[in-house]
């Protein structure tokens, strides 16, 4: 199957992405929601803590509207994973730097779990801005991303977010983490040993 090169201007998919339907149009809205769910699932698979933090920040599905209008269709043409397309969009947006730190570090930390293909890892490396020294990879960050990851992991453990993922079907309101981070430039350093990749933070002022 060849890679698509264009989407017809009259295509329903294009129309839907460029004009997210109002929730009162239940049928069309559900189609749109299902498109977004693929994006979110793809991101969550590669960066579960980022996906959770993003949803806590966004609070509303409509926040995905600008991604849909601007980049979703291009993803189809580029034939890249949803996560790649969304992260490319997100890193170029004016979203908070701590969230960008988080997604860059978490995806690189988990890269071997979702792709072992060198070609794909090179694409991710370029997108995420991963740099290398002789014995380790690193990413320039604006805050201590390891603390952020710990806070989110702890939040998953101490609220129902990990164990109660069916509660939303019962109309239970979400419990959102209100993340507060302190700006602190530094580098996130990746080390692989015994098949396990680790991440640590070194502040620029030390």
């Amino acid at each position, binding site marked *: 199957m060849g890679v698509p090169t264009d989407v017809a201007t009259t295509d329903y998919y294009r129309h839907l992405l460029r004009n997210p339907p109002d929730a009162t149009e239940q049928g069309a809205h559900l189609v749109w929601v299902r498109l977004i769910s693929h994006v979110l699932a793809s991101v969550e698979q590669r960066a579960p803590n980022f996906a959770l933090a993003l949803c806590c920040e966004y609070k509303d599905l409509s926040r995905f509207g600008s991604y849909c209008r601007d980049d979703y269709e291009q993803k189809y043409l580029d034939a890249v994973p949803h996560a790649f397309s969304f992260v490319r969009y997100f890193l170029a947006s004016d979203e908070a730097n701590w969230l960008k730190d988080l997604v860059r570090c978490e995806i690189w930390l988990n890269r071997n779990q979702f792709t072992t293909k060198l070609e794909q890892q090179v694409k991710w490396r370029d997108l995420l801005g991963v740099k290398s020294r002789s014995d380790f990879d690193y990413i320039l960050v604006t805050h201590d991303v*390891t*603390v952020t990851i*710990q*806070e989110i992991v*702890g*939040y998953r*453990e101490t609220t129902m977010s990990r164990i109660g993922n069916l509660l939303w079907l019962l109309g239970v309101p979400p*419990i959102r983490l*209100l993340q507060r981070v302190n700006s602190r430039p530094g580098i996130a350093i990746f080390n692989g040993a015994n098949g396990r990749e680790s991440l640590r933070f070194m502040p620029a002022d030390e």
Partner: protein
Amino acid sequence: MNRPSIGISVSDYSEERGHSPSQVYCQVGHIEYGGFDAPAHDKEFRHALECNSQLAVGRHLVSTELPSNLDIRAEASRILDDLRAVPARYLLTDAEYWHLGGRSSKNVWVRPCSLTPEMCAQIIGNCRALEQEIGLPIWVENPAFIEVEYDFTVSEFFYRLAEGGAGLCFDVGHFLAFCVNESLDPEFEFSQLPFEAIHAAHVAGLSRVEYMSKELVIDNHDIQPPADCLEFARQLVKRAPNLKWLTYEAELASVDVQIAGLRSIMEKLDGRTN
């Protein structure tokens, strides 16, 4: 002021997390083990003592139902069995751990604790009886999940326990979360505590969450203690003359967080930070 021993919590070893290094265990005076397995059987507990043989040991019991009608001799026997070959200096537990359908770790569950005069009486009686059987102090901790009845607050609950002769473990994070979530003044509530009865304290991280448009605070053992927790810990050390053990509860945290959290506690207590 006499600084209490600063310790760190230890829980059941997990392959996924691995061991904390000796760097953590060499800078603390004690560990407080709160795992479900018996401490002598737990890899992380043994590892901590191999790193630092001078560590004192506290046991955070996780399945003794202090507010329940206990068979004291059977319960004491079970606790002593759990402590076999472990030189524990103290025991403590909060009132929210219960078991259901058996006594293994799989049957332990957490339920909200009701603060009532009847509950106080039950806890006091059980603590005294168990202490006599076991020969170690058992202190009562203010729990994380609480339901208030009879206009009780945590400080009144503690006061009544102390009046009845129970020793206490003051969990700073649980206390602050309760005050914030119930819209109480933490300074006032803190001033009402029975300080002489407090022998141990816990400090941990707290996260802010939003639920139904209201900001609430919950425990988070994965992160460093926030500034307000540290300040209440400092005040507690000044005002509680019998406080001997202060434990940083961070058994789930990364090593970097454990080290940074311990440092922030020590600096606060030594007056090196405001």
